């Protein structure tokens, strides 16, 4: 009986078993945990539009004429595009698009300038990562307008004879990953993350304050149980709840909203555990700070707001000011949205997904550490 210390497997199991029984007895809460996601899904399942600018753009250019320069300048001036870099190979460009480093790739063909002057209507290709159509649609519109103006001006000035009512180039726009630009494709997978965030943070935020309010904390603290055992022990049963919610949402996504699913379900299920655990731990951390259940609830809502607004769920991530992007990147939902959209819409594999997984792991770890530090070992 002298097994004290930070973590004992035996005590941990005792806490888990207790939490499972309590969860099972609390039918109403359990039902709400199941019904709430479905209701939110239906309520939110509609588009929210927005107008982001300064989207990262890569240019694949094999031409150095005045026309290609004025096209890129016009794009930049439209404020919708930030030219990240100029690449020289097709592979490089595709890579930037796939990893999400660039939202657009503009391809300027060889002899672009010469062909325009000859009136051959060269093809100007803009490829967009349309996973999030609300992020790209306005930019695409602005692109057409910008190119037309720039070329008209150039042609009217130096080469007046070539100016015509007709477009001097053949503009082609490819929306990759979600060609029909259906907003629900983007919103619904995003909703999964949002709903999980709200319910999971809330459920554990209440968990420890409930012990304090009911007085059971006094007894618990007088036993050798350690903060880590209590925290992780409280989280474990709710991981299961998280998965139940996830399954419901995925089913609705597939059959209610007919969102196509490209990627591997196994992948999405296995990687989601980090997101679920991170949210639950954040909830527990809140409950170690809150004095009562009301405060815990307020904290969860306070956390939910930025999760809605700053993670790329409601407004495209890249459309946000820099500070908001910084805040967004420490919220697990930001990374989870990228992960889910990547897997469901782009068919990302494990390798591409890992870039979104480690930030979530980091956030989770930070929450565990903070929670353990803040856990009150006394009634003071």
């Amino acid at each position, binding site marked *: *009986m002298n097994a004290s210390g930070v973590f004992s497997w035996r005590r941990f199991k005792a806490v888990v*078993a*207790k939490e499972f*029984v309590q969860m099972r*007895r609390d039918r109403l809460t359990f039902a709400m945990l199941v019904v709430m996601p479905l209701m939110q899904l239906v309520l939110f399942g509609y588009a929210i539009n927005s107008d982001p600018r300064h989207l990262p753009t890569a240019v694949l250019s094999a031409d150095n004429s005045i026309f290609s320069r004025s096209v890129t300048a016009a794009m930049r001036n439209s404020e919708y595009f930030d030219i990240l870099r100029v690449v020289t190979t097709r592979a490089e460009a595709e890579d930037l698009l796939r990893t999400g480093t660039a939202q657009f790739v503009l391809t300027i063909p060889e002899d672009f300038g010469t062909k325009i002057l000859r009136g051959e209507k060269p093809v100007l290709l803009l490829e967009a990562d349309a996973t999030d159509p609300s992020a790209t649609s306005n930019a695409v519109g602005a692109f057409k307008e910008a190119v037309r103006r720039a070329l008209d001006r150039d042609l009217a000035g130096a080469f007046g004879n070539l100016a015509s009512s007709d477009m001097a180039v053949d503009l082609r726009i490819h929306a990759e990953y979600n060609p029909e630009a259906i907003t629900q494709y983007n919103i619904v997978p995003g909703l999964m993350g949002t709903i999980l965030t709200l319910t999971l943070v809330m459920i554990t935020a209440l968990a420890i304050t409930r012990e304090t309010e*009911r007085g059971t904390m006094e*007894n618990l603290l007088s*036993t*050798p149980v350690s903060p880590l055992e209590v925290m992780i022990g409280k989280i474990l049963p709710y991981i299961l709840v998280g998965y139940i919610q996830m399954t419901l949402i995925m089913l609705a996504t597939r059959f209610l909203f007919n969102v196509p699913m490209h990627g591997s379900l196994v992948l999405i299920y296995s990687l989601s555990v980090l997101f679920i655990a991170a949210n639950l731990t954040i909830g527990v951390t809140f409950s170690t700070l809150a004095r009562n259940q009301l405060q815990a609830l307020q904290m969860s809502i306070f956390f939910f707001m930025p999760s809605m607004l700053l993670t790329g769920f409601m407004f495209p991530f890249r459309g946000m000011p820099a500070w908001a992007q910084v805040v967004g990147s420490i919220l697990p939902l930001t990374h989870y949205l990228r992960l889910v959209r990547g897997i469901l819409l782009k068919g990302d594999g494990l390798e591409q997904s890992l870039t979104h997984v480690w930030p979530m792991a980091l956030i989770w770890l930070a929450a565990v550490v903070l929670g353990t530090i803040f856990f009150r*070992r006394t009634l003071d």
Partner: protein
Amino acid sequence: MNAPQPVIDVRGLTKIFGDKTVVKGLDMRVNQGEIFGFLGPNGSGKTTFIRMLCGLLKPDAGSGTCLGFDIASQNDRIKPHIGYMTQRFSHYEDLTVRENLLFIGRIYGVPDLDRAVAACIERMSLGRYEHQLAGSLSGGWKQRLALSACTLHSPRLLLLDEPTAGVDPGARRDFWDEVHKLAATGVTALITTHYMDEAERCHRLAYIAYGDLLADGTAEELIAQAQLLTYAVSGPGLSPLGERLKELPGVDQVAVFGTNLHVSGRDGEALERSLAPFMAEPLTFRRIPTTLEEVFINLMQQGRKA
């Protein structure tokens, strides 16, 4: 047991809440195998003191040891050997009696838990309620569950905060028999109570009022220290008589006990002088030995004046 070992040995223990000093520099020494009664009026700091002993509250001043471990820095070593019964029911109301006991047993790593829990349920006659949710038990049965839970892991020190509040006399007797049995095996118990008969069943007593320790010793010592003179009065019209006696010099307290009125005072001569005019038919006056209750009420009045 050879030379008595202190199980609780604290000095100058102090707790301040805001601007209120709730426990003021308390010294206490409790030896192994002792049943130590801790008494005092409501709000005098008993619960606060116990919480400091088991690490639930940090003392603002003072230091000491519990089971030989420092109460400030070695809480982890103390906790496994303490059985703390909280004043307010603090087990899970949404777990059954058995589930609560199993949980506690697992936390402490009780060996052969199933048998231990079964024995505990049997000993406390909880069998009938074994599968009932703790929240639906009556007050007394909740107390019994809490008691079972805090003895399940065979602790070396019991800290019991009003363990018998709301418990019927039969169960109270069972409880005290049990505590004495445990004490005989070397278990130490610190018990708070408001019942005088329970105070008399303790080996030693301490009385605390509004944060100050006012007395400490065996029941006989406390009674002797108090130096109270007590008269029992019987006859008709005791109630109005009591009211009149209260006003007189030398009379510190008057209380009705059934058909008797107990009148006591510290200053024996003044008391007898004040009572002399009333010592006539139909009233009868008898000098009786002072009881603990009078001693404590007297201490409480002193505490309030201080």
